[in-house]
């Protein structure tokens, strides 16, 4: 049965994990993620949750900016839509968290489609400005639409719940955030195994010939916006459940820059890169805090001159990676792996 064989080999060839070694490593990773909360202290748990949320949002932005080539500074706004949706539903309904998070994602996706409409006409810097404007506008709504958003004071939330279980502590939230992050990264991986993902990349690489190949530009650009802001909306919803309060300042404009930086530092158009970037960018401020705390006994002024360091470091990282390592951390990771796959025979 040659034909059957051929078919099976294509299926194996199209699989995410092409070898059993890869499968084993992935199983190990899942195991580590599952055991982590039982070993980690409160601080590490908090960081784990933060990284999980950042991974979801960065993956979303990577789909839009890294894979479809549409630069967006609207990510914080879309996360805000998700966060406020969850907060409002928590106060006004008894819906369990899977439903509220889904609605948060869908509402953010709807807003994303609206914001994405100009993308057929404007590109690059102009699109960045257009999405920035949308983000400013959303921020304005969060602050001013008091009857719904609670104005500057914001809204506080009941804990996430499902089947009578309530998720309050970081430990409990971890078991919502991390599985969801794994699932959503998995979904994004699937996207790029199919026509939808190929269409996104085609639009990024050359949009005119994409059109002549039969790809409807507006449709796929909007689809990318919708998907990306769906991820942002879910991340924002998780953020709201995690802190149990949302205010306009929960989703500042600098957050959009943070996510764009995570995509650039991690590696545009590379899902693994997005994950690395999200973790890296989340952990840098923490490292800086530790450093400040360590310095303060010797230099009492340390907090004063260290506080603006974060913005400077983010800026230097973005520019540095753009110039010296445009493929980001993902490329560095591949180099390390190549090195160890040959080591100790060659170096």
């Amino acid at each position, binding site marked *: 049965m040659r034909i059957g064989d051929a078919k099976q080999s294509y299926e194996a060839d199209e699989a995410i994990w092409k070898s059993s070694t890869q499968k084993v490593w992935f199983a190990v990773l899942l195991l580590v993620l599952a055991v982590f909360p039982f070993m980690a202290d409160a601080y590490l748990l908090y960081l784990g949750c933060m990284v999980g949320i950042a991974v979801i949002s960065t993956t979303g932005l990577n789909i839009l900016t890294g894979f479809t080539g549409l630069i967006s500074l609207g990510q914080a706004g879309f996360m805000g839509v998700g966060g406020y949706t969850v907060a409002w539903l928590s106060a006004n309904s008894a819906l369990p968290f899977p439903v509220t998070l889904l609605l948060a994602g869908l509402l953010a996706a709807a807003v994303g489609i609206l914001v994405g409409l100009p993308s057929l006409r404007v590109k690059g810097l102009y699109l960045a400005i257009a999405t920035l404007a949308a983000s400013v506008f959303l921020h304005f709504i969060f602050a001013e639409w008091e009857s719904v958003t609670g104005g500057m004071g914001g809204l506080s939330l009941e804990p996430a719940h499902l089947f009578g279980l309530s998720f309050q502590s970081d430990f409990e939230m971890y078991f919502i955030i991390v599985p969801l992050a794994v699932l959503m990264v998995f979904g994004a991986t699937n*996207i790029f195994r199919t026509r939808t993902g190929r269409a996104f990349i085609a639009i990024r690489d050359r949009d005119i010939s994409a059109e002549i190949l039969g790809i409807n530009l507006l449709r796929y650009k909007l689809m990318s916006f919708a998907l990306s802001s769906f991820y942002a909306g879910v991340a924002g919803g998780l953020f709201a459940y995690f802190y149990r309060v949302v205010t306009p300042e929960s989703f500042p404009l600098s957050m959009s820059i943070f996510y764009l930086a995570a995509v650039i530092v991690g590696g545009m158009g590379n899902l693994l890169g997005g994950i690395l970037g999200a973790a890296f960018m989340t952990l840098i401020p923490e490292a800086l805090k530790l450093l400040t705390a360590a310095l303060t006994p010797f230099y009492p002024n340390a907090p004063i001159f260290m506080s603006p360091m974060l913005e400077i470091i983010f800026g230097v990282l973005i520019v540095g990676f753009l110039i010296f390592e445009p493929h980001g951390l993902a490329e560095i990771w591949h180099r390390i792996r190549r090195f160890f796959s040959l080591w100790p025979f060659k170096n």
Partner: protein
Amino acid sequence: MSSILEISNLSLSFGGVKALQGVSFRVPENTVTTVIGPNGAGKTSLFNCISGFYKPQQGTISYQGKALTGVKPPVRAAMGLARTFQNIALFRGMTVLDNIKLGAHVHMKSGLLGSLAYFGAARREEMAVREEVERHIIDFLEIDHIRRQPVANLSYGLQKRVELARALAMRPKVLLLDEPVAGMNREEKEDMARFILDIREEWGVTVLMVEHDMGMVMDISDHIAVLNFGQVIAEGLPADVQNNQQVIEAYLGTSDMDSLRKKLNPEREVA
């Protein structure tokens, strides 16, 4: 023979530049029809009008008896008009396989949710496309060895071949090839000529081609149209066109008949 594509009275200008002026000719079904003409004659512009990428100010293009006016490029692609580009337009960040699969885009259905889940119909559709591409296209064009490579790493000749593969994945009825052998060595040219003839004979596809290599043009064309300064100055069988006085003048613009005849009637290269 019925025509699958009919261009009538097509005019296109860019500001003062008249790229096409009242161009009319027919592409008979299941032939290799070639448009020749000096640089800047308007050949690529004509292709861009057929793809729907340029909008002519005047005239119509009808395909299978229906006017294409107002039909958007993606819809034309879905109707069976596929093309390759003079300056290779592959997606450099993708592998050869993904580039070719992109050609099948219009024949696939799965939407966002199917793609996210990679399950059921979406998965079956992807597998079917993979199989079709492998069996009918990758084998046929002899590019098995490069399927996993990013196209940016390939030689010019191979890139042209991958672009042809992608156009074939669109399951075309009419295949537009803009200078398919430009920049190739002799062996690559011969391969390409063989592929084009096979595509017409075995796949039943009509080929409309622009090409400067007269040897290849005279060898494989069934029908030729000559464009000069945006106007058709001759149309017919290769033999008729070769000996047409106007064509000879357009080509070199001199009266040095010997070298002209030589250029238009290239001697067969001995293999």
